[in-house]
């Protein structure tokens, strides 16, 4: 399987604090790569570097696309999602709570719709070409809502959904930008076992059917061990282990990091 993302010697310092220390790892196409580690290990900081919210102190991040590899350092802010096609979700859900479920999914298709609406000009004239494109966007939203079973709540406010559904909605909203790489920050946090199982199913579907690479931060081991193809373990900003899920379970370093060293 070919590489999708290569992180090389990534270092992030905040003043004197080194949050990520010389981290290198690869994530492959059509695989779920999990980043785990105790609280404060620097997992979310890795995400923030990858998705342009932080500018790393040192190191490179490359995304391998059909047309060649591109450096993620070049893109900041909204361009990571718009140009590089790296999507993410957040640890504390960030939906648009006062907007409807459907509108949430349409905002994710903003850039295509902006072009289709002739930067609002065609839209104001109500041209058919724009209306057709809008219908396509709605169809795409319906497709994803069917998958997570929220089609009948499409017109309700996103903020009124139950917690588990909000998590799933945030994931499919990120999928609406058709990303190459999907970064999920603790998607199973606060979910009950049944909801976690549904989440596993959704992530497997995205991996196999949508051919999208997934990078996952998670504490819920039933999710991590159930679906990860590859696991990277961080502690104090350093990579302490890398391997398959089964190898991780038995690794001495990992157990020490989580449970402490036996004196």
């Amino acid at each position: 399987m070919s590489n999708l993302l290569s992180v090389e010697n990534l270092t992030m310092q905040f003043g004197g604090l080194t949050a990520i220390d010389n981290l290198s790892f690869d994530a492959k196409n059509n695989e779920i790569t999990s980043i785990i580690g105790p609280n404060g290990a620097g997992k979310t900081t890795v995400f923030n570097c990858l998705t342009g919210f932080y500018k790393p102190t040192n190191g490179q991040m490359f995304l391998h696309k059909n047309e060649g590899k591109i450096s993620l350092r070049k893109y900041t802010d909204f361009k990571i999602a718009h140009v590089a096609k790296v999507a993410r979700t957040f640890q504390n859900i960030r939906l648009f709570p006062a907007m409807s479920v459907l509108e949430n999914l349409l905002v994710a298709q903003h850039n295509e719709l902006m072009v289709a609406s002739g930067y609002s000009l065609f839209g104001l004239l109500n041209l058919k070409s724009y209306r057709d494109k809008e219908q396509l966007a709605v169809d795409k939203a319906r497709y994803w809502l069917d998958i997570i079973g929220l089609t009948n709540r499409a017109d309700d406010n996103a903020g009124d959904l139950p917690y588990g559904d909000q998590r799933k909605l945030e994931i499919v909203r990120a999928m609406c930008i058709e990303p190459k790489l999907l970064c999920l920050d603790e998607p199973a946090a606060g979910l009950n076992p049944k909801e976690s199982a549904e989440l596993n199913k959704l992530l497997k579907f995205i991996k196999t059917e949508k051919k999208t690479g997934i990078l996952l931060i998670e504490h819920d081991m039933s999710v991590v061990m159930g679906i990860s193809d590859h696991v990277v373990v961080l502690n104090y900003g350093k990579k302490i282990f890398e391997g398959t899920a089964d190898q991780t379970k038995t690794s001495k370093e990992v157990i020490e990091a989580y449970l402490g060293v036996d004196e």
Partner: protein
Amino acid sequence: MEKKDIIQSVKDSLFTGVIALALFGPIVGLRTASKGEGLFITPQWGIVFILVGLCILGRFLINLNSARKTEFTFFSKFTSKLSSVTEEKAKHLAITAILFAVVFPFLPFTDRYFMDVAIMILTYIMLGWGLNIVVGLAGLLDLGYVAFYAVGAYSYALIATTFGWSFWICLPLAGVFAAFFGILLGFPVLRLRGDYLAIVTLGFGEIIRIVLINWYEVTNGPDGITGIPRPSFFGLPFKRSPDEGEASFHTFFNLEYSTMHRIIFLYYLILILALITNYFTLKIRKLPVGRAWEALREDEIACKSLGVNPTNTKLTAFAIGAMFGGFAGSFFATRQAFISPESFTFIESAIIVAIVVLGGMGSQTGVVLASIFLIGITEMFRDLEQYRMIAFGGAMVLIMVFKPKGILANRKPTILMHGDKK
């Protein structure tokens, strides 16, 4: 109701009375009057007792009512009914309202005074709708909106007096200038949100006003600009005695000359401008850029993570909002024929923001109701002179008590998957 409750509410009412006495005693009770030489204090205890009595009685009645746990208010019921009407009915309601606005100048009780008030209300409705784009949709609290109103008015006045171009050429130019100033303000405040943004926009409003006062060579400073040309009816001026060989409105249509003609024309002009603003806002809200504005109001970080460009989105909101402020400004200039920086003080911005917030952020109908309510009430109490601002404040307090989210707070989705179910 139990005896205990009654005693409790009597106690509470008396306490209210004490507060009222402390407030009204010095403010109303002691009046200074100048007699001959020097000021003398004339006590007016009678009025104080009446006011305090009213407060005690009012508080007691409110207590009785809340003890019975009945919803007192026709107002809440009326507005919640308004919020729950279906799209079909809302359309009928809007058409009725527009029809009423169209025939209003010809109703039997409509006189010059009513027309002036109606024009004023419509101007505020238009400003409210313009600001609604910035505050209601994009969620950018702008306390300096009057700056764009001023830019529109001054661009119109300067272009019209310097080049003598007609209203219909100057109007779009004024809009363009105001939009340009909108972008100018937008750039430095891109990173600001909430309170910080409000402070900077407030400062911007003051800067524009102070520039207008001090840039004597161009704006004529505090003396203002006089002799701004009036709009004409497709080239027909509203003059009593037109120049030789020129037709004026009343000679062309063989009418008796009346100043009302011009007033009625101005009324229709602002009505059309306001309706254009409304139509445009309703349309653009359903377009991607409108949805991006609302998404930005909800969560800017999520917007970035979805590839929405926050810079462009914010700047378009500022520019379009400012443009409508500019249109309203040129209307103001042509209506008054005289403008000076005094017309563009902070209180104007505050009133417009109040209209948007009290109407219910983002609600177009809410802006209309709030304008009629606030401006109408202030006008009704005009006889009270400076005390009419108490009525204005009272109206705001009433709305905030009964409708903390504004008169019409509910938001309808811009697009539905399953159609209108209600």
